[in-house]
């Protein structure tokens, strides 16, 4: 078949890239080879637009065993325990078929984690939808939530935390990011680097069908009106088979049979074989007629590009083939030796004893294009908002409006569809700042949280980037965990647009600065570009997933009030920053100005000293102050508790709205038993931490002196209405 410009374009390759391919091969590729190049050189696999910028992220630290570049990141949590985790996007497939898209997203990220030898212990997600009144939103929400639940519940791994947000920016391009966290023995971690020549390359798992052919290319192309036509490529997830694959892999990993292992994710057999060979500096020869196929008459092109789920590629040590095969047969899974490692440094593809394609591995991997795309700095906005120009609003009305908004409503409609308790190690479920998962059979635990702030990032990418890292860090602190490391999912628009590329670059600058200051390295992640349609790009939405350690397990504090008449303090300074706040958005539909300033020094000091108070068992509950400000934070502490709160009016700020709804950072509300108050106060004073007494807990009402009195029952009702009526 003659390779025409049209075919090249259909493969998502630029003509200059095609010229490059010809140079590397020193000839024209055939269609199979072209397909392989297109899969490896697209944005999703090659990171061609992002690679240069990702390099600046801090990825090292005492706690890091493996940083980015493997299937997932690995950190040390003491003893022989390692935590393996990663977040990944499945945005485009989920928009096309929400149930299967979200389900296979969960399946894919789980494989990334158990490929490395970990038993998955927790799932998290960050899902973003368009405006609730957009005609597609409701069915997308339903589909995505059931897909996430369907997969996680069936395979039996608890879905413990997440965030669900609505914003018109996602009307035509939703975000579905899934994170998996696993636990492994740190001396038993498996990597994808091939070693040794003539070793068996084994295909295990499900059979190969025509699913998702060119899925990875689809994830790297913008949607247009015709995106409906791309539908047949969506893969179907089979959590049952994945459960079998998980158990079979973990069983095989008990001995020393595996040299390297890699899951067949995006670009399936192509990317897994190239990755393994490239890391090992080897070649690989595959006999494609041996690939287990689900459909008749599948071509080498289809086999190499299929994205059928629940498959793995393993390189086995000599003589281990039979014992390994027995394990996979026990679990009713395919196990076929389909090739071997070679010293040719080529990917050699045979079909019916004929060489159908041969490509130097480095042409697909290290020589893949890298672009230094043009980008522009975002100018800080000069927009100012003067409260005096706005219609006056009562505190109570403003609070009710925020608490009943889609973004702030109680999300149990969603979380009740996820099994959060299976495995019996979930110490703190979702609905708190972070979830807590016990390490099985041990007296320690990890805390996990995912966060994003698209509005802040849109307004100012550097501040926004810093802010999410800090917020994520705070969420782990409030449950008493020492934050260790993060994974990030960078959801952006079209990188060929210089404003978008600027947002990307500057968000990374912000993330880098905060991570460095907080010693909070990035150990894994994923970039998703081309989110948007018809030249309308989504708001920059980096999502941060953090993991922290609780060395000695204790009954979780949670963020709900525990007692009557305990003291409430606010750690951190309040300046009353209302620009980009929920208060303005929900009450006035104003989306203007700068996000709040980030002071990393205060951030670190406030957090570390709160951790001291928690360690010394001096506090009853704590909650970080984020979107919505102080009053929303206190309201959230009232939900699920039997208590209300009585708050004082501020001494300094004249505007109550600024004080109660300002979104200044590095702040926490902490509930302290009267008897412990002086001890806690001493620690805060000794460490120069700014704090103020803001009131105390009480029965039945949320009250501000002379300004507001609302019963906790009504508050709860307001917060629970939206989802149930949607």
């Amino acid at each position, binding site marked *: 078949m003659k390779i025409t410009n049209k075919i090249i374009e259909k493969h998502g390759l630029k003509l200059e890239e095609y010229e490059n391919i010809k140079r590397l091969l020193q000839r024209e590729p055939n269609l199979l080879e072209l397909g392989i190049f297109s899969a490896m050189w697209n944005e999703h696999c090659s990171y061609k637009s992002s690679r240069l910028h990702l390099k600046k992220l801090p990825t090292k630290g005492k706690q890091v065993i493996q940083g980015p570049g493997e299937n997932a990141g690995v950190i040390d949590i003491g003893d022989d325990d390692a935590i393996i985790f990663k977040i990944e996007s499945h945005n485009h497939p989920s928009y096309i078929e929400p149930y299967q898209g979200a389900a296979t997203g969960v399946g894919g990220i789980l494989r990334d984690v158990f490929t490395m030898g970990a038993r998955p212990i927790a799932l998290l997600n960050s899902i973003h939808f368009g405006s609730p009144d957009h005609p597609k939103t409701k069915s997308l929400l339903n589909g995505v939530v059931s897909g996430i*639940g369907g997969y996680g519940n*069936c395979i039996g791994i608890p879905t413990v935390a997440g965030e669900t947000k609505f914003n018109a920016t996602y009307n035509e391009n939703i975000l579905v990011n899934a994170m998996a966290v696993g636990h492994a023995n740190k001396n038993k971690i498996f990597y994808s680097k091939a070693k040794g020549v003539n070793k068996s390359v084994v295909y295990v798992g499900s059979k190969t069908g025509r699913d998702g052919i060119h899925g990875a290319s689809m994830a790297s192309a913008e949607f247009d009106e015709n995106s409906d036509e791309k539908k047949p490529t969506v893969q179907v997830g089979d959590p049952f*088979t994945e*459960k079998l694959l998980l158990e079979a892999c973990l069983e095989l990993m008990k001995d020393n049979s595996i040299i390297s292992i890699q899951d067949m994710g995006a670009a399936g057999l192509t990317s897994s074989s190239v990755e393994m060979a490239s890391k090992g500096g080897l070649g690989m020869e595959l006999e494609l007629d041996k690939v287990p196929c689900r459909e008749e008459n599948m071509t080498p092109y289809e086999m190499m590009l299929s994205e059928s789920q629940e498959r793995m590629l393993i390189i086995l040590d000599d003589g281990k083939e039979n014992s390994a095969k027995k394990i996979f047969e026990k679990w009713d899974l395919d196990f076929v030796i389909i090739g071997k490692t070679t010293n040719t440094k080529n990917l050699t593809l045979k079909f019916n004893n004929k060489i159908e394609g041969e490509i130097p591995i480095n042409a697909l991997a290290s020589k893949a294009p890298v672009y230094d795309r043009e980008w522009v700095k975002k100018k800080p906005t000069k927009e100012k908002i003067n409260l005096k120009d706005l219609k006056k609003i009562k505190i109570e009305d403003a609070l009710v409006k925020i608490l009943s908004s889609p973004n702030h409503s109680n999300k149990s409609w969603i979380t009740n569809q996820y099994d959060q*308790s*299976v495995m*019996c190690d979930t110490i703190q479920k979702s609905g708190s700042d972070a979830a807590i998962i016990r390490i099985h059979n041990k007296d320690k635990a990890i805390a996990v949280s995912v966060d994003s702030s698209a509005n802040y990032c849109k307004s100012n990418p550097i501040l926004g980037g810093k802010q999410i890292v800090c917020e994520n860090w705070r969420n782990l602190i409030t449950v008493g965990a020492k934050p260790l490391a993060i994974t990030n999912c960078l959801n952006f628009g079209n990188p060929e647009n210089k404003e978008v590329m600027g947002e990307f670059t500057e968000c990374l600058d912000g993330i880098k600065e905060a991570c460095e200051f907080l010693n909070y390295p990035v150990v894994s992640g994923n970039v998703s570009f081309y989110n948007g349609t018809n030249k309308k790009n989504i708001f920059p939405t980096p999502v941060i997933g953090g993991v922290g350690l609780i060395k000695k397990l204790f009954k979780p504090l949670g963020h709900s009030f525990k007692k009557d008449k305990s003291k409430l303090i606010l750690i951190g300074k309040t300046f009353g920053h209302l620009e980009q706040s929920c208060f303005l958005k929900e009450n006035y539909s104003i989306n203007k100005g700068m996000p709040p300033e980030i002071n990393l020094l205060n951030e670190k000091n406030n957090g570390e000293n709160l951790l001291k108070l928690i360690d010394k068992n001096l506090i009853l509950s704590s909650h970080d102050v984020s979107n919505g400000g102080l009053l929303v934070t206190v309201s959230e502490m009232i939900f699920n508790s039997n208590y209300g709160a009585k708050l004082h009016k501020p001494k300094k700020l004249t505007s109550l709205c600024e004080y109660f709804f300002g979104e200044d950072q590095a702040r926490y509300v902490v509930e302290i038993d009267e008897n412990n108050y002086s001890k806690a106060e001493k620690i805060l004073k000794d460490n120069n931490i700014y704090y103020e007494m803001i009131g105390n807990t009480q029965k039945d009402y949320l009250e501000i002196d002379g300004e507001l009195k609302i019963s906790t029952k009504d508050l709860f009702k307001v917060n629970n209405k939206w989802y149930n009526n949607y």
Partner: protein
Amino acid sequence: MRSSVIVFPGSNCDRDIAVALEKMQFKNQMVWHKETKLPKSDLIVLPGGFSYGDYLRSGAIAGKSLIIDEVIKEANAGCLILGICNGFQILTETGLLKGTLLRNKNLKFINKDVHVKVINNETKFSNKYKKNQILNINIAHNEGNYFTNSKHLDQLKKDNLIAFKYCNEDGKINESTNPNGSLESIAGIYNSKKNILGMMPHPERMVEEIVSNKDGINLFSSLLS
């Protein structure tokens, strides 16, 4: 006391129940579904999960597995059988318990802590509970909506074969306290000889204060007494 937990492909609460049994000093063994012989056991547990992915009907395919014939034989000989969640569904598919579990009335998977009332506290499984004791216990299922014909329902009532009913924290039973639409709020039932218990709630998730509470412990200690 010796217990056996049957592991089907797709079971996912097998480890959880094993941990709970061992914590309660049962001598437990895991039994793979392809086995044709059961180890000598006083209690056989069919654990929760998604055996065979819940494909076709929940529990239907596990109900045809090799080991099930042995379980049926043991059950008929009087061995104690406990089916939790998917295990309950398997028991109804094999006919060891009558009735069936339909999809939840809201057509969604439900995971939350609910209250159930101990209706019969005079069996091998429940003698450590007080009559009408209210337990706070976790449910996690798609098909937990118990249904049976009126003749069987009459028998369940007459012979005191209803094990647990969903209720609120004060023990009231009505439409709003019924999470999944079960007939008469039934959360668990016995066979007529009361050696087989099938229940949707997960007692194995309720054995540790730090994780949840200890409301499930008495089910295991009843078996030991």
